[in-house]
């Protein structure tokens, strides 16, 4: 599939300098992983940089063979892991080009990346065309495998349906009374999809509740005074928000002194990553999701203890959703590579062999069992947890009141679209 090699000697001579970047044969003992995530812009602080921080220490531990079983083999099945990192900034146009450069110029063996849903949607068909095994590690839109099917593309994290289904279930489980609710979500696909999922789930779980305000501030607006006034005036029982990163923190900082968190129960569907930086200044009593059982809500397993210690020793802060999502991609990839090598007699696996190994695969990640059951075996489902912010004995604001939902309680069955499943009243959900 590498055109460079196919076109043979004369072309190589003529293309000269250009080929220097792409033509060299790889040494057998290394495995090149292209990693794409936000290193600049608004998503850098909340998602991209912590994700890559997590990836860095994990890859180091894999290469040194210091991870616990079943991750204790050096590298990927003995091959040293060599990461090539790219900034995800610049939009889908730039990312398609950089993806091609990673595959065709840098000759990476796999690509792991993409936080933005728009980037994921654009990359998936390109990956398919280039026949390159690719893991989408973070993005949330259900459209990837609901609107198309792919052979080489996998997503090792559950899509966004579970975030809001789980949230509605948590409210019910905790007996939160909701007769009116409002939403403040960013004005782009993520915000609109989150709000649509949440209102649909609320119709099922709280059929009596009504919407009293729906606000869609621009992405990166930074100033929420007007929105906060509107929310204060609407006086809903509950305020739903999928704001993340700097926007989420700005809403907290601006809303806190104005009594937003006293007047209504606020729920942040994906707001866990704002807790460590805000520390003791984080408001208490907020219901917080993390898009999985991550950070404060992660299961107490040997693997998670090891991973949390690894991350905290390096960065002195608790890992939140972004590093966990990177970790569940890299742990899955490692096992898939080694499984494929078992099947092919120990050679470096091809993209086809990797895809075969990853399809319908399941593995224990620090955040619990990841199962590639949906999207024809290409889309993961995973457990999710929610909690409420509260002070612990040391005076730090952490998450308590944690409820964990099994993967099949909050994710649609393999043959259903997320939103249809919600509207049908969650048929086939297994909640215990």
């Amino acid at each position: 599939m590498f055109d460079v090699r196919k076109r043979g000697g004369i072309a190589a001579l003529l293309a000269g300098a250009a080929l220097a970047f792409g033509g060299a044969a790889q040494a057998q003992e290394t495995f090149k992983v292209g990693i794409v995530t936000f290193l600049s812009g608004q998503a850098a602080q909340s998602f991209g940089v912590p994700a890559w921080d997590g990836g860095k220490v994990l890859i180091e531990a894999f290469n040194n063979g210091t991870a616990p079983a079943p991750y204790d083999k050096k590298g990927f099945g003995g091959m040293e892991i060599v990461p090539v990192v790219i900034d995800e900034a610049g939009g889908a146009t730039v990312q398609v080009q950089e993806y091609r450069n990673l595959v065709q110029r840098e000759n990476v063996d796999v690509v792991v990346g993409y936080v933005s849903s728009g980037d994921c949607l654009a990359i998936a068909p390109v990956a398919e065309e280039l026949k390159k095994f690719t893991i989408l590690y973070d993005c949330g839109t259900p459209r990837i495998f609901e609107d198309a099917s792919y052979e080489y593309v996998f997503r090792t994290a559950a899509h966004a349906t579970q975030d809001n289904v789980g949230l509605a279930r948590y409210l019910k489980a905790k007996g939160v009374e909701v007769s009116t609710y409002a939403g403040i979500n960013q004005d782009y696909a993520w915000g609109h999809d989150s709000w649509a999922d949440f209102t649909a789930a609320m119709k099922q779980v709280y059929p009596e509740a009504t919407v009293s305000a729906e606000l869609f501030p621009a992405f990166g607006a930074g100033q929420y005074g007007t929105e906060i006034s509107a929310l204060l005036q609407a006086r809903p029982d509950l305020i739903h928000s999928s704001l993340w990163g700097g926007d989420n923190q700005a809403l907290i900082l601006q809303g806190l002194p104005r009594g937003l968190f006293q007047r209504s129960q606020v729920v942040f569907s994906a707001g866990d990553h704002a807790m460590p930086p805000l520390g003791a200044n984080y408001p208490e009593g907020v219901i917080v999701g993390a898009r999985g059982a991550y950070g404060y809500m992660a299961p107490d397993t040997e693997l998670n203890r090891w991973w949390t210690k690894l991350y905290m020793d390096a960065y002195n802060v608790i890992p939140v959703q972004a590093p966990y999502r990177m970790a569940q991609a890299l742990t899955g990839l490692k096992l898939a590579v080694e499984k494929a090598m078992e099947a092919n007699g120990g050679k470096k696996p091809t993209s086809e062999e990797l895809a075969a190994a990853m399809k319908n695969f399941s593995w224990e990640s620090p955040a619990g069992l990841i199962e590639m059951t949906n999207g024809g075996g290409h889309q993961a489902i995973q457990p999710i947890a929610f909690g409420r912010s509260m002070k612990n004995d040391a005076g730090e604001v952490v998450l308590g009141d944690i409820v964990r939902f099994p993967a099949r309680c909050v994710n649609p069955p393999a043959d259903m679209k997320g939103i249809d499943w919600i509207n049908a009243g969650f048929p086939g959900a297994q909640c215990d």
Partner: protein
Amino acid sequence: MDLVLTIILDGLIYASWLFIVALGLTLVFGVLRILNFAHGGIYALGSYAAVIVTPFFAGFGLPDWFSIVSMFIAAMAVAIVLAPLIERGLLRFFYGRDEVLILLITYSVFLMLEDATKLIFGVNPYYLFEPRNVLGNVEIGSLYYVGYDLALGGLAVICGAGVWFGLRRTRIGKVTLAVIAEPEVAQAMGVNIARIYLLAFGVGVFLAALGGAFTAPLISVQPGNSVSVIIVSFAVVIIGGLGSIPGAAVGALIVGLARSFAVYEFPEAEIFIIYLVMVAVLIFRPEGLFTPVKARKI
């Protein structure tokens, strides 16, 4: 009635913030004929300066209200470091060139500032809590407002009046007006144009940094805060008329109120309301609201 009051009040608070940021932009354009793209980067740097400088002074045991003063100091520090660097070190070589070319130069300065800021401060967020607690809360109607947010209106008036007074009532200000009107004649009369340019640019940088500094307590100070600021402040000065201070004030009011109105009544239009206003104004007043018609060159 309560709703109308809220819309106006929220719009005014937002307009105050817009005006502080846009004022520097319009001043720099008025004097130097430069639409400064790096304004947003300087704004972001002002936020960082505030979160560094304020705790530094607080460390001396100064009272809480001093945190407001220290934000002025932070903005001043940014201006003293950056203004000579950018204006003397770079921009002065391009005076008289195409406006769009200079716009691109300031765009590359913006790109460099963006990464330089990241390299210096990292990506982890910084916060500034003290200043916002100084002025307490105010209850208006059924809503709580933070005194600090309302005081931004006062700051906007001080900044606007300060620049206005500086230009109209001081000697150097009047010289600056002469430079705006006829740079070559002013130079022939013995005005040190370089000094005027540096001063005007310095004030512009100071105002951008001040806007950033006073926004710091409202936000998480981290990479990526600079981009959205540029475009809204561009819109404000274009609506008002480039180079016009009353124009910037009126532009800020229009944009602030339009946005506030949209949030309540047409939340789905918020994303492009600013641009709609800009298009609407430019259709009827091609050079913005407050720009006098210039004679065409022959």
